[in-house]
C-alpha cells in the first residue's frame, strides 16, 4: 500500500489544480464531484494504508520516499512521508472530518458564486495539511505548515468583497507568520547543531549531542513552540483565531477547529523526543496551555457571536492539548485532538446549519427556541456541547479526564495545572450550555428557513456519532510515544474531575434556562462591567498588540513613506543646484569683471608659485 501513499496528498492537490485552473468554468455539480471526490479518494487510501498498518503484527513506522528535494551544501531534504500511528491518526481525522465537511459544504456553499474557488482552496488545504502530517522532515513539514496557513488566509478572506474579511485574513496570516518565523529559526538552530532536519534523525542526534536540559535544546524547543503557538492560537499569538471566523462556516469547522489549529499540537507531539530533553520547554508548553485555556474560557463566557464562542472554546481546548503535551501526556493530548476534531467540527457545522437557516445571523441573543425548528442542529449542539463540556461517556470526557489526571500527577506544579484545567472545564461547561440554552430554548426571536437537506444533515449525524463514540477507542500511538507510567486513578481528584462539568452544566441550566440565578448584579456592577468588557475583548490582547506593534508600525512607515534616505540624495542635488545658481551670478557678462577675475587668478597663481601662498 505504501506505493499509494503519495496519492494521499496528491489527490486533493490535483483537485485543487483542476478547480483552480478552470477558474469557475465548470458546472457546480462537477465542481462538487471533483472537490469531494478527491478527498474521498484520499480518505479511501488513508483507510487502506491505515488498515494495513494497524493490522500488522507489530506496527513499525516506515518512510515513503517520493523524491529528493534539495541536496545542497550538506543540507539534504527529501519529499518523503513518514507513516506511523501518529501520522495515521492525523490523516484519519483530516480526511475523515475533511470529507464530511466537504460533503456538508457542497450544499452549504451551493449558492455562492465562487463555489469552485471555495472547493479548490479546500482541496489545497487538505493536501497541505496531509503533507504537514506526513512529512518526515521539518522542512517538508514547514511546507505543509505554511501551505495550511495560506489556505487559512485564502478561506478566511474568501468573501473578499468585504474589506473586514480581508483584514481578518491578513491578521490570521501575519500573526501565524510570526510564529512560523520563530519555527524557521528553530529549524536553523537545529540544523546548525545537528546537521539535519529529518525528524527521526533530529531525535537521535539530539540525544547524542545534548544533555537533557541543555540550553540549546531548550532554545530550539522554544522556537518550535513559537511556531506551534502561532498556528494553534495559543498565548501570545491567539488573537487571530476569533477574527478568522469571518470565513465560511465549513472553513471554521475544518481549518479553525478540527485540523489546522491543532498542527501546533502535532508539531510538538511529533518532536516529543526533543521536548523530552528539555523539561523547561515542557513546562513552558504546559503553562502556555493552562493560561490560554483559562483566558479563552473566560472570554467565551462573554461572547455573543455564536462562532466566536466556538472559536474561543477552540483556543481553550487546544490549551488543554498543550497542557497535555506539557505534562508529557502525549497520547492524551493527541486523543483530545482527535475527539476535539469530532465534536468541534460538529458544533461548527451545527452552528453553520443555524446560521444558514437564519440568514447569516451570528448573534446568539437574536436566536432562541430553535430546538424544534432545527432539530438536527439542536441535537448536534446538544451532543457537541456535551462532548465539549466533557460530560461523562462523551468522547470529550475520556480525553479531557485523562489530561487533567495526568496534569495532576505531573511534578511539583501538577496541582496548579490541574486546578487551571479544572476551572477551565467548569467554565467550558457553563459557556457551552449557555450557548445551547440561549439558542435553542427560550422564546423564538426569528423565523428560520427550513433546515437544509441531507447533504448537510448527513455529516452532522455522522459527526454526532463520532462525538459520542470517538472516545471509546484508544488512539494507536502507543508505539510512537514513550510509555507513560500508569496513572494512579485513585484519590479524590479522580472523582472530582468528572464531576466538574456536570456542575458547570447545572450552573448554566440555573442561569440561562431557569433563570434562577440572576447574574445581573454582577454584570451591572462597575467592576463586573469592566471585567466583562475586559474578558469580552479577550483580555485586551488585541488592543495591546494594536498599541504596541500595529499602530507604531503603521505610523513609522507612514512617516517614512517618502524614504528619509532619499532626502539625503535630494538634498545633495538641491545643494548642487544652489551652488549652480550662486556661481552663475559670477558670469555677469561684463568684460571688466572677466578681466578682473582673470587677473585675480594670475595673482593667486603667482603667489602660489613664488611660495608666498601655501599651495
Amino acid at each position, binding site marked *: 500500500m505504501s506505493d499509494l501513499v503519495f496519492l494521499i496528498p496528491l489527490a486533493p492537490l490535483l483537485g485543487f489544480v483542476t478547480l483552480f485552473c478552470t477558474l469557475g468554468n465548470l458546472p457546480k455539480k462537477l465542481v462538487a464531484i471533483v472537490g469531494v471526490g478527491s478527498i474521498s479518494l484520499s480518505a479511501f487510501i488513508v483507510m487502506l494504508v491505515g488498515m494495513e498498518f494497524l493490522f500488522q503484527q507489530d506496527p513499525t513506522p516506515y518512510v515513503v520516499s517520493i523524491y529528493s528535494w534539495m541536496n545542497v551544501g550538506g543540507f539534504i531534504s527529501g519529499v518523503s512521508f513518514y507513516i506511523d500511528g501518529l501520522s495515521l491518526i492525523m490523516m484519519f481525522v483530516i480526511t475523515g472530518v475533511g470529507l464530511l465537511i466537504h460533503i456538508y459544504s457542497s450544499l452549504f456553499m451551493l449558492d455562492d458564486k465562487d463555489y469552485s474557488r471555495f472547493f479548490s482552496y479546500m482541496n489545497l488545504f487538505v493536501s497541505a495539511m496531509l503533507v504537514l502530517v506526513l512529512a518526515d522532515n521539518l522542512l517538508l513539514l514547514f511546507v505543509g505548515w505554511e501551505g495550511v496557513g495560506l489556505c487559512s488566509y485564502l478561506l478566511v478572506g474568501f468573501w473578499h468583497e468585504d474589506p473586514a474579511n480581508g483584514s481578518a485574513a491578513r491578521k490570521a496570516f501575519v500573526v501565524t507568520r510570526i510564529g512560523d518565523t520563530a519555527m524557521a529559526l528553530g529549524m536553523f538552530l537545529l540544523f546548525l547543531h545537528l546537521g539535519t532536519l529529518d525528524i527521526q534523525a533530529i531525535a537521535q542526534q539530539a540525544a547524542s549531542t545534548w544533555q537533557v536540559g541543555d540550553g540549546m535544546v531548550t532554545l530550539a524547543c522554544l522556537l518550535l513552540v513559537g511556531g506551534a503557538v502561532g498556528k494553534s492560537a495559543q498565548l501570545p499569538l491567539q488573537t487571530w483565531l476569533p477574527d478568522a471566523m469571518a470565513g465560511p462556516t465549513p472553513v471554521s469547522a475544518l481549518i479553525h477547529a478540527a485540523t489546522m489549529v491543532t498542527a501546533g499540537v502535532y508539531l510538538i507531539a511529533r518532536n516529543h523526543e526533543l521536548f523530552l530533553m528539555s523539561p523547561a520547554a515542557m513546562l513552558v508548553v504546559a503553562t502556555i496551555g493552562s493560561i490560554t485555556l483559562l483566558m479563552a474560557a473566560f472570554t467565551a463566557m462573554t461572547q455573543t457571536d455564536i462562532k466566536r464562542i466556538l472559536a474561543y472554546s477552540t483556543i481553550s481546548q487546544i490549551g488543554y492539548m498543550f497542557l497535555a503535551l506539557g505534562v508529557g501526556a502525549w497520547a492524551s493530548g493527541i486523543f483530545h485532538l482527535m475527539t476535539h476534531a469530532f465534536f468541534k467540527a460538529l458544533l461548527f457545522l451545527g452552528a453553520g446549519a443555524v446560521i444558514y437557516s437564519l440568514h447569516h445571523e451570528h448573534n446568539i441573543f437574536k436566536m432562541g427556541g430553535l430546538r424544534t425548528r432545527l432539530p438536527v442542529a439542536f441535537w448536534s449542539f446538544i451532543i457537541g456541547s456535551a462532548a465539549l463540556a466533557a460530560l461523562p461517556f462523551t468522547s470529550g470526557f475520556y480525553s479531557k479526564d485523562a489530561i487533567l489526571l495526568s496534569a495532576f500527577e505531573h511534578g511539583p506544579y501538577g496541582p496548579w495545572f490541574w486546578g487551571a484545567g479544572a476551572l477551565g472545564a467548569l467554565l467550558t461547561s457553563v459557556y457551552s450550555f449557555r450557548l445551547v440554552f440561549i439558542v435553542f430554548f427560550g422564546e423564538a426571536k426569528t423565523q428560520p428557513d427550513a433546515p437544509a437537506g441531507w447533504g448537510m444533515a448527513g455529516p452532522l449525524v455522522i459527526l454526532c456519532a463520532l462525538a459520542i463514540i470517538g472516545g471509546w477507542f484508544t488512539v494507536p500511538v502507543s508505539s510512537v510515544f514513550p510509555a507513560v507510567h500508569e496513572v494512579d486513578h485513585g484519590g479524590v481528584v479522580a472523582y472530582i474531575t468528572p464531576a466538574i462539568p456536570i456542575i458547570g452544566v447545572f450552573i448554566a441550566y440555573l442561569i440561562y434556562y431557569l433563570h434562577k440565578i440572576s447574574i445581573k448584579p454582577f454584570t451591572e456592577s462597575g467592576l463586573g462591567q469592566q471585567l466583562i468588557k475586559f474578558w469580552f475583548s479577550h483580555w485586551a490582547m488585541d488592543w495591546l498588540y494594536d498599541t504596541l506593534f500595529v499602530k507604531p508600525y503603521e505610523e513609522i512607515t507612514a512617516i517614512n513613506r517618502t524614504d528619509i534616505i532619499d532626502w539625503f540624495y535630494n538634498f545633495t542635488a538641491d545643494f548642487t543646484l544652489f551652488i549652480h545658481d550662486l556661481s*552663475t551670478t559670477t558670469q555677469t557678462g561684463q*568684460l*571688466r569683471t572677466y*578681466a578682473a577675475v582673470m*587677473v585675480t587668478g594670475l595673482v593667486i597663481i603667482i603667489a602660489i608659485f613664488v611660495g608666498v601662498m601655501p599651495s
Partner: protein
Amino acid sequence: MTEALTIPMEHGLLLASLLFLIGLLGVMVRRNIIVILMSLEIMLNACCMAFIFAGAHWGQTDGQIMFMLILSIAAAEVAVGLGLLLQVFRRFGSLDIDRASRMRG
C-alpha cells in the same frame, strides 16, 4: 655711439612691469573701447620693452626680433580690433564696453 647703457636689468624690467600694469589697469577700469584697445597696446609695448631689456642683458638679437614679432602681432590685432570697434559703434551706437553684456549667466 657704440656703447650702450649699463644699468641693472631689473630697473628696466621694473619700468616695463609698471607700464604693463598701468595698461592692465586701463583694460580693467575703462569702458571706452578705444581706450581699452590703447591699453592693450600699452601692455604689448611693455612686453616689447621687457624683451628689449632681456635681449640687452644677454647681448642677443632675440630680444629685438621678438620685439618685431610682437610689433606685427600688435599691428594685426589693432587692425582687427579697430575694424570690430567700428562695427560695434554702428550696431550698439556707443563705445561703452558694458553695452556688450547681453550674454551672461
